[in-house]
């Protein structure tokens, strides 16, 4: 079936986008979530609210602001000029930036909650056991908060796979470059190509189901102690 061959690029792009976005978010969200969990600074909840904004704004609005930010009039344009481009829009990098911003709250929240659930006592205990703050983080806080990381990863990944509004706004739907599954499906629906739309949509559902289920099962197994 030749239809299937040209369905692969959006799938591949979606997987790449979701994976890179999730990994990036885990790296960015961790120190942010840590700070939110432990800081006693006064502006803390203001920062928390700003972090949650992408969840509240309609995706097209969010996408619009990101479009300006990554364009030649915004910081993205400056970054792009470092390698001679005018803008980060219509690039995979632009999509990653957009997806990271859009999924940030869904990753920060569970990690923050996990750190808060760990609390201060294990870290104090670690300090009395000769662990520097960095060691306490790696050897105690991180393992104890791992369910939160798993949740965050699952949520971030699935959020990005399903991300439509933002991707649409800043991607330009370029085949092979920024045409991901969500926008490809939209395209097929718009142009009444039902079969292709169904194949992609069905595939998305199955895939998301498998990913989430396996992560939940991993989390359950991981809940036992390491000996």
């Amino acid at each position, binding site marked *: 079936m030749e239809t299937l061959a040209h369905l692969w690029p959006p799938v591949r792009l979606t997987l790449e986008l979701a994976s890179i976005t999730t990994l990036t978010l885990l790296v960015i969200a961790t120190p942010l979530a840590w700070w939110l969990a432990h800081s006693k600074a006064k502006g803390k909840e203001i920062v928390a609210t700003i972090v949650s904004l992408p969840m509240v704004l309609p995706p097209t609005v969010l996408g619009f602001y990101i479009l300006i930010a990554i364009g030649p009039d915004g910081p993205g344009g400056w970054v792009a000029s470092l390698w001679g481009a005018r803008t980060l829009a219509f690039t995979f990098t632009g999509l990653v930036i957009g997806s990271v911003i859009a999924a940030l709250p869904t990753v920060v929240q569970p990690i923050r909650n996990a750190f808060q659930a760990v609390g201060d*006592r*294990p870290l*104090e205990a670690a*300090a009395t056991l000769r*662990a520097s703050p960095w060691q306490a983080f790696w050897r105690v806080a991180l393992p104890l908060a791992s369910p939160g990381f798993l949740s965050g990863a699952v949520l971030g990944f699935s959020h990005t796979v399903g991300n439509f509004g933002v991707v649409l706004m800043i991607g330009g739907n370029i085949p092979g470059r920024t045409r991901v599954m969500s926008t490809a499906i939209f395209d097929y629906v718009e142009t009444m190509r039902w079969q292709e739309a169904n194949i992609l949509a069905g595939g998305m559902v199955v895939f998301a189901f498998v990913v989430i289920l396996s992560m939940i099962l991993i989390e359950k197994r991981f809940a036992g*102690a*390491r*000996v």
Partner: protein
Amino acid sequence: MSEANRIRAEFHNVLGNFTLNAAFEVPARGITALFGPSGCGKTTVLRCIAGLIRVKDGYFDIDGEIWQDPDQTFIPTYRRPLGYVFQEASLFPHLSVRRNLLFGAPPEKPADRPAIDFDEVVDLLGIRPLLDRSPRNLSGGERQRVGIGRALLTQPKLLLMDEPLSALDRKTKGEILPFIEELRDHFSLPIFYITHDIAEIERLADNMVLLDKGHLVACARLSELQSDPSSPLATSREAAVTLRGVVTACDPKFGLSSVSVPGAVLIAPPPPATGAIGEPRRLRVLASDVSLAREKPARSSILNVLPARVVAMKALDGYEVLAVVALGEQGDGARLLSRMTLKSWTELGLAEGQNVFAQVKYVSLNAGRGTDTPTHPVK
């Protein structure tokens, strides 16, 4: 800076509504109990010593090693050579007991003091069967023992224990107390021990720091505080003294032992385990179990009738009197408390400086490792 072999602590701070104002100095040996009513600041002081609370105006040094001073120095908690035992063990649930124990163990043994060995600790605390289990499946007593072991294996110079037994039931407490006694006797490690249970203090402590509402009330050797009529310990209804003695003889026929304390030899049940002659033992004598006589009673069922001298007296509420007597004809031995009616004191014509006979009705002997012996009358 304090002299060698001493610990000095000074913390002045206002934390919220609570003002902490404590300064004391104790020997860097044995168990120092921190005692006082709820909210008096004992845990705060301990956390300050640990560096978990950072006080702007604080000083701490142990045997010449300064951990913090008001000017510049503040060694963070993880660089202080201390061990900390929390009230609820706080073991790491994601690690096995063995990994918990070894969590803070340094790669090299300390150069300036005897090393605390893994197997030694495991056997002492009786936790070998638990090594490969998860902390989630342990009982409260088991967890606390692992917590103590974990703190010890960091090769500390000072062990801090925050009410380590108060979350446990009576039976478990009774099982773990001997371990802590062993700690005191086995490792030459100073221990700061918080408790609100006077019985634990009598059993374990060598020195005592008394706190109230964030302020230092007293800091002295336990025996001094117990027999100081101006201290709340002495005037309480359950006032007692702890005597440290050495077993000199056993009498298996009557199930008794002789324990020598400064100024006298006391007879106490039950007989110690074989081979206990020469071993140290602690005795506890309640003030209400000691009566005084001007002459030695001719024949009395009370076995312990000891020459002593009245050294102090304090009138109490309710027509009662507290007398402090020092054992020995010269009055230079260990001190006992005696609580009697005002009428007795007056009609006997007792006064400070007088020689008397102290009749000790009940002696409680702490038998070291094993369960605590119940109070027995020795008449």
